[in-house]
């Protein structure tokens, strides 16, 4: 089976189109926002957000069925974002604050899900996503949530770059760094919500963190940093999607799309680490 066959076969199926749209917008948003997660060292905070979003997802599912998932996730994410941003400003050691929120929210989520009739099925869907069974409504909502995240960061891009590089300098030149941080955290929350649906709550971090981390390894300036992260995110998402489709159809082994994509992202990171160890310094960092 060659690539053309795979593509034509895959995209004759409506569910593949839906998966591709969800993943495409998610990859763009995660690629851009992941760069800032990396630059500002917000990996652990993002992890805290994914856990905090979980009870929202669970409650939405239990009270309003599949359609309630996005709404629940957005509400939980909004609440958690504001709390986490303010806590980290108040100089409660932010790691401790995140750890407390992370575990308490996640257990609340599990308790909520346990009230549901079909516990195992719903838990699995919430934790590992349901890329190939997303509904048209979910496609539209996740795409909108991703576009919102992209818009928030693109509209504040200069301030975000300045604040990431040198927060005090940014404040000194008149930027509201608290406002910018809040906007960034809301964008991260949006990506977490969208990714929870596509690749699942447990696998969000791969999509959010890997592209920025890889691109940082190789770029010398800002242009390469953003371009690299976006290209990697799109390419890895495409590879994961087509890979899981090919194996599922060709070898008749059903592979969950979300997990396949997370594996491709992480494998990309490993390869990048390996190449970086091998390639001499001079050849690296070509573009600015």
């Amino acid at each position: 089976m060659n690539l053309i066959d795979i593509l034509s076969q895959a995209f004759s199926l409506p569910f593949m189109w839906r998966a591709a749209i969800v993943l495409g917008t998610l990859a763009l948003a995660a690629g851009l926002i992941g760069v800032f997660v990396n630059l500002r060292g917000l990996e652990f905070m993002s992890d805290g957000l994914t856990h905090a979003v979980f009870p929202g997802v669970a409650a939405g599912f239990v009270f309003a069925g599949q359609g309630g998932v996005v709404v629940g996730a957005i509400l939980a994410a909004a609440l958690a974002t504001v709390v986490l941003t303010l806590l980290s400003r108040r100089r409660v050691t932010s790691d401790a604050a995140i750890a407390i929120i992370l575990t308490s929210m996640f257990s609340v989520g599990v308790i909520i899900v346990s009230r549901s009739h079909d516990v195992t099925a719903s838990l699995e869907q919430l934790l590992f996503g349901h890329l190939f069974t997303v509904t048209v409504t979910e496609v539209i909502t996740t795409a909108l949530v991703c576009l919102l995240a992209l818009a928030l960061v693109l509209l504040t891009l200069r301030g975000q770059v300045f604040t990431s590089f040198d927060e005090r300098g940014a404040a000194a030149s008149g930027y509201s760094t608290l406002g910018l941080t809040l906007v960034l955290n809301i964008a991260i929350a949006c990506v977490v919500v969208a990714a929870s649906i596509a690749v699942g709550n447990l696998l969000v971090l791969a999509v959010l963190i890997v592209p920025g981390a890889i691109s940082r390894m190789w770029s010398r300036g800002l242009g390469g940093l953003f371009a690299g992260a976006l290209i990697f995110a799109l390419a890895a998402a495409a590879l994961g999607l087509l890979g899981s489709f090919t194996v599922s159809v060709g070898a008749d082994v059903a592979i969950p799309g979300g997990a396949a994509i997370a594996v491709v992202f992480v494998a990309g990171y490993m390869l990048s680490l390996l190449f970086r160890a091998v390639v001499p310094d001079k050849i690296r960092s070509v573009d600015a």
Partner: protein
Amino acid sequence: MTETRLLNLDDVAFAYDGEVALDHVTMHIDPGQAVALIGPNGSGKSTMLKGVLGVIPLVDGEMTVFRPKKGRGQSGRIGYLPQDDEIDADFPITLRQVVTMGRYRRLGWFRFPSTDDRQAVADALEVTGLTARANQRFGTLSGGQQQRGLLARALATKPSLLLLDEPFNALDQPNRDALIATLNDLKSRGVGILLTTHDLDLAREVCDSVLLVNGTQIAFGPREEVLTLSNLQQAFRDVQVEVDEHTVVLPGHEH
């Protein structure tokens, strides 16, 4: 207060995290005037700079910072040089991109850099002797070059008031001399300067006035009038001070 005064503080107090960190500051900076802000560690020097920048709140007194008047938009900005150790050396950004940050506020959120903006960046790189390094990754520059790069960023704003936090730290002799020359040149073009330093000798080469603090203002005025033994004694308890190449262990050091 004269029309052109860049900075005027009248019995000002600044608070940091809800606590007053520096109070009773009464000082001013005129165009072309350089003031050295001197005091021991934790005496409120950085607080003072942040207060003037408006990053931390003023809780008492009155402060007037020069603001650009309509139609004179090219001057009136405050340039700020942070301490080098606050910068993430591993950040993927070129020197030119760092210096361009000095233009961000003028550019607003969306406008692309114009010829003027690019010229200001080129000029700032030229003055700091970094033109050849413009496309290098910032983190690969030496400590002294990074410091000069951040100075170039401050200069790219075309400031009329320049605030520098320990600008002479991490600089070797040639870089020090170059910085002193740059600062003196800025002064001659009417830029006001406020810099923190531990080194009284360096302060002397650039600054005509001194603001001596230790949690509160001890003295402000012409250098010779402020740097008296009794004033220094009040500011630096338990520390050594270098005055005219002599190390003076101030009374109060012995316990």
